[in-house]
């Protein structure tokens, strides 16, 4: 993984000192509260419903065991003993004190971590495929390009006060696992006919109140031009983006209102003047960043292991976990193991400090001391020897991190909701729990197969409901919690936004409604291999609508 040199460390240390000074001035009353708000947001600090919330950056989801132990320490010392992994591969603490935050940031700096630009109208944490470097369908490892982009974006002097937040996602594989088409900029790392590396640049995607699928602004961008082209897009957006209405300020609206052709013309004109400037990457720059992301020293002998097959045959619980929570690795004899943060009775994405310490120890023992956070709010050990899978699973079972539900209905993506967030209309976590209870039976879930249930407590869409195969959105109706359901969303290759089923349903009916949708699918599917999404795309909304709203449907028919 990437390691700081003296330049990275100096920047992060200076940032801690700067924020310590800003916090002191705010507490002394010499820095106005509204100005401190903008500054603290750019250091990850929100003020939530009950307490401040601190969001810490995990660049492109990569974390070392040492860093995870520091997060455990922070949870213990400054918070209520747990943290929450988010859909941006970051971690949030929900109970820090404002006056402690400079100390927390100083602790983080000792393990090469920070909270810079994890919030506020600036360039946010860069996300990437959580299987980068090990996925079988990958062209090149996107992480060196992510780190280049992270450094270019960090404290960029021109783009700290954008019209709205700005998010990059990278992918370089056949299957898009990082939702690149619903980001402000999605970067697809590709190869041209001559075998050269470059990028397909997608712009203007986004979720939230007005979900939009991004459009290709450039089909081929040479490898050396990533940063200059990004700078051109950001400059045009900074000047052109709307600042009169927060809901129309994202680049997706700028692109829509300007028109892609015109927007592209402006970006290209800007780019032409800076492309050969200092941002042009040299082969040696890229090679330097790539040198941090080489593969581990794999043992060839592990491929001849037979113990794994024996355990699979003997232990059906282990076999169930292996079926759902393991993915194939490039290296024979190794596997990718998912740690499910979606256990019963736990808010999706939550981890205690004891679990964090234990996970760090397991990462050291079984996965080269590294792990990843996924945008689905789970964790991944990317490089586990096949022979170690059984003891790893046994340890994870004890930690309640072995729920075999990756990609299944109870692997819900969910925002913190009404329980923590001051914006939310609905208790997304409580609903997630109810759904968990309803569908907990594994055989039933396996029968249903791959399905993405995404839930947001409000229109801001932090739970990515618009791209859930089933999406649930909390809405407020005269002080009561109601839920709008959508079907057919996807953030993968052919990204699509979910269609509304019809009127929203009340709190007491939401679990029933999801069950009705699932039953309808099971009746309609062509065969067991037809996924929920494929089935919905084939049959459309009418049968689901009829099942969900029988009275209304009968009325229409009459």
């Amino acid at each position, binding site marked *: 993984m990437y390691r700081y040199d003296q330049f990275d460390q*100096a*920047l992060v240390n200076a940032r801690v000192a700067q924020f310590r000074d800003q916090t002191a001035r705010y507490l002394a009353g010499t820095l106005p509260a509204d100005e401190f708000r903008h500054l603290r947001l750019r250091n990850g600090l929100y003020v939530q419903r009950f307490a401040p919330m601190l969001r810490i950056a995990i660049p492109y989801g990569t974390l070392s065991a040492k860093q995870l132990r520091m997060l455990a320490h922070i949870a213990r010392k400054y918070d209520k003993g747990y943290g929450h992994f988010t859909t941006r591969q970051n971690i949030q603490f929900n109970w820090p004190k404002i006056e402690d935050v400079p100390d927390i940031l100083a602790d983080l700096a000792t393990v090469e971590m920070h909270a810079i630009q994890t919030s506020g109208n600036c360039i946010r944490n860069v996300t990437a495929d959580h299987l980068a470097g090990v996925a079988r369908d990958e062209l090149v490892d996107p992480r060196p390009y992510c780190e280049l982009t992270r450094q270019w974006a960090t404290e960029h002097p021109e783009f700290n006060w*954008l019209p709205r937040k700005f998010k990059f996602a990278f992918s370089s594989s056949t299957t898009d696992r990082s939702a690149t088409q619903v980001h402000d900029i999605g970067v697809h790392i590709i190869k041209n006919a001559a075998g050269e590396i470059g990028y397909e640049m997608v712009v203007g995607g986004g979720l939230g109140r007005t979900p939009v699928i991004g459009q290709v602004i450039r089909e081929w961008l040479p490898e050396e031009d990533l940063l200059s082209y990004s700078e051109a897009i950001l400059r045009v957006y900074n*000047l052109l983006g709307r600042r009169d209405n927060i809901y129309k300020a994202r680049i997706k609206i700028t692109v829509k209102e300007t028109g892609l052709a015109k927007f592209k013309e402006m970006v290209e004109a800007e780019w032409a003047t800076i492309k050969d400037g*200092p*941002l042009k990457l040299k082969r*040696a720059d890229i090679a330097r960043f790539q040198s941090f992301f080489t593969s581990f020293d794999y043992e060839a002998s592990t491929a001849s292991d037979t113990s794994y097959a024996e355990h699979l045959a003997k232990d059906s619980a282990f076999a169930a976990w292996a079926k759902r929570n393991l993915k194939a690795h490039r290296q024979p004899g190794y596997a990718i193991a998912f740690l499910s943060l979606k256990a019963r009775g736990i808010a999706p994405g939550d981890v205690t400090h004891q679990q964090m310490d234990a996970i760090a120890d397991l990462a050291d023992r079984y996965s080269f001391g590294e792990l990843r956070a996924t945008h689905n709010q789970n964790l991944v050990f990317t490089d586990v020897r096949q022979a170690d899978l059984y003891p790893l699973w046994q340890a994870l079972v004890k930690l309640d991190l072995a729920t075999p539900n990756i990609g299944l209905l109870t692997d819900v993506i969910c925002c913190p909701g009404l329980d923590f967030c001051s914006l939310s209309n609905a208790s997304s976590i409580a609903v997630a729990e109810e759904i968990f209870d309803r569908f907990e039976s594994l055989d039933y879930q396996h029968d249903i197969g791959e399905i993405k249930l995404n839930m947001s407590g409000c229109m801001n869409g932090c739970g990515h409901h618009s791209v859930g195969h089933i999406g649930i959105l909390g809405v407020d109706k005269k002080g009561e919690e109601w839920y709008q359901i959508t079907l057919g969303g996807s953030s993968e290759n052919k990204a699509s936004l979910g269609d509304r089923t019809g009127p929203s349903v009340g709190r007491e009916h939401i679990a029933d409604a999801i069950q009705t949708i699932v039953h309808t699918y099971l009746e309609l599917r062509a065969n067991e291999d037809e996924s929920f999404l494929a089935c919905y795309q084939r049959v459309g909304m009418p049968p689901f609508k009829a099942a969900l709203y029988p009275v209304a449907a009968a009325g229409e028919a009459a």
Partner: protein
Amino acid sequence: MSLLLDALGQPIRDLYLALADDAELPPVAAVIVSLSRWQAQADVLAVHAGAVAVQLPNTSDVLVLDAALLARPMLVLDFPGFADGRAYSQARRLRDRAGYPGRLRATGAAVVADQLAMMARCGISEFALREDQPLAICQAALSLEARPLPYQAAQDRSAAVFDARRG
């Protein structure tokens, strides 16, 4: 009257008089006029005995400024709100694309200690501090010793981390 600092944080004397659009043009003084007044009275202002600087709204396209405007000894950029960063990009375009060599002054509600360093990095050369800003904190913010080498090259330094690593 607010304090004026140069890019290194040294206080400088303000030789310019900011002229309201309906105020009479004094015979010799150096003045700052709005872009609309400059456009409306170009002939008169061209032969004015004192220096004439022009203040640009942060919504104006600096790429269409004519040669007479780019020949001004000073252009004034507006930072009207703490979170409105448009003039940062105007500054970069004026320096990078228009090749503007004169003084670039920042004015407005966002000209505060916490934003000075980034303004300087974008090519702003002097700062009309908001009235409530303490001098010492603003000077500290602009001190080069206090600032680590930035990742990206911009207008204020020839070197950035990327260059330093290249050796």
